[in-house]
């Protein structure tokens, strides 16, 4: 028997291990495919429908039409796949018991969490940036029939294209941290959906002034600001300001996850 003996477990080695884990599950591959197709295709679909119905649109909508938001509009759908997969990357280890193998190999535990975050963030950013660029180019080609196209050099264009990829990447990290906190798939997804989609509904029933003050700081409003050019509500944070707030929530969730990871029995 011989084994190439490593003197110690290094962060790079744990990253390699997590990369093998990520690519060796069918569910991961399908979720990433779904996220990429959604991100790349949904904007073009919406733009095509809009161009088709152009004469039926309200005059106001035609005058204010901005092709940058539909160019990256795929995030509305891609975020579901990215969020659910983020939860599952770690909750799947708890439900199958794999987490015990992971912690026996890396008994300090936090490197496992950080490696998962690192690998997932790198994969999500790469795929979502490509999908976002593809979507941008496709949408501009479609809206050029009405002369509404933008170039990447136009104000805000490059920012939303890169910003969308960044937003989805951080969203993936956020949901992964939620999965690590809750440690089960159904609960993790419920928490993710609750924080992103249910919270805005709750602020909507608050008195308008209170709701308007809180709403920009909710995770989804804050995070998606960087992927938005024309805001529906006048109450919103600046693109990068909102993104920074969303990153803050994510860092907080990761810290809670890391502390619990070390403290709790596996």
């Amino acid at each position, binding site marked *: *028997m*011989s*084994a*190439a*003996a*490593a*003197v*110690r*477990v*290094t962060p790079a*080695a*744990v990253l*390699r*291990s*997590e990369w*093998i*884990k990520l690519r*060796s*599950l*069918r*569910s991961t591959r399908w979720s990433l495919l779904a996220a990429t197709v959604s991100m790349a295709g949904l904007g073009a679909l919406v733009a095509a429908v809009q161009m088709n119905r152009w004469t039926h649109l309200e005059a106001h909508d035609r005058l204010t039409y901005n092709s940058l938001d539909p160019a990256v509009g795929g995030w509305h759908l891609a975020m579901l796949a990215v969020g659910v997969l983020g939860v599952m990357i770690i909750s*799947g*280890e708890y439900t*199958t*018991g*794999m*987490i*015990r*193998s992971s*912690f*026996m*190999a*890396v*008994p*300090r535990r936090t490197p496992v969490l950080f490696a998962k975050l690192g690998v997932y963030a790198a994969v999500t950013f790469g795929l979502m940036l490509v999908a976002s660029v593809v979507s941008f180019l496709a949408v501009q080609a479609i809206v050029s029939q009405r002369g509404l196209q933008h170039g990447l050099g136009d104000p805000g264009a490059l920012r939303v294209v890169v910003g969308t990829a960044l937003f989805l990447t951080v969203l993936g990290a956020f949901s992964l941290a939620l999965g690590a906190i809750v440690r089960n798939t159904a609960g993790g997804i419920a928490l993710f959906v609750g924080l992103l989609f249910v919270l805005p509904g709750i602020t909507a029933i608050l008195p308008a002034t209170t709701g308007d003050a809180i709403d920009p700081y909710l995770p989804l409003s804050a995070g998606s600001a960087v992927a938005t050019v024309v805001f529906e509500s006048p109450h919103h944070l600046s693109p990068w300001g909102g993104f920074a707030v969303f990153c803050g929530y994510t860092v907080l969730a990761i810290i809670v996850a890391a502390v619990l990871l070390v*403290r709790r*029995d*596996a």
Partner: protein
Amino acid sequence: MIEVHSLTKRYGAKLAVDDLSFVVQPGTITGFLGPNGAGKSTTMRLILGLDAPTSGTALVHGKAYRDLRAPLHDVGAMLEARAIHAGRSAYDHLAAMAATHGIGRRRVEEVIDLVGLRDVARKRVGTFSLGMGQRLGIAAALLGDPQTLVLDEPSNGLDPEGILWIRTLLKNFAADGRTVFLSSHLMSEIALTAEQLVVVGRGRLIADASVAEVVARASENAAVRVVTPDADVLAVILTREGATVIRDGDGAVEVHGLPSPRIGELAAREQIVLHELTPGQATLEDAFMALTGTAVEYHAAESAVVA
């Protein structure tokens, strides 16, 4: 080597492990025996750093598991509960484990061949039988060519050929000067495999000795069979000496509470002819029942009342 000092683990109101201390020595196979719910799996999880002890320590090679820098080279472990993602292939599972320690592809292939999973290595673990799952668990434990093996019920689900295979594997491993700590609730299996025993019941240490010692101790209390034409006289004499004598018919009596040499001496003094004098020989099963009789967590009678 594994050293457990005053190890205690409390889950809420339940004391799963209660002030447990023992040492598992290298070069021998140590069986970890106890009824279901005695705290065996919890003790193993504490040794492997998966659960934190309420108090006390568990050291592997002189260190807490969490402080081992390359744990897979120190300890190979297989837990009773599955610790493998069902959606991954055996090969990918082992490759992911190996990557954390920079263990190469060749070693992964090697352990796959060693446990006989070559034909199914690329199939999803979810499709595996219990026995194949056990073999994969053993492959993962052997991956880092460790100095110590910690195995929770390793022969669960293995066929007789598989049980023989793992017994040989563990014996060779111990003969190599390494440490083997192996839990089981099957006495027969432990009797054939282990030399040393750690017995627990209700989270407490009941015995820490060699298999031979445990059996010898139990045999002292085992009944002695005596066949004599003067059974009535002998019964009176032995009873006077404090023994309990049960008449068996055909002149045979069963003597409890006196060792066979003493019975022989007494018979000789009274000039009683003995046709047969058979010392009691306890099996490990008997020894185990005697040791854990009062410490069994779930008595059959109790569950019968509930049902």
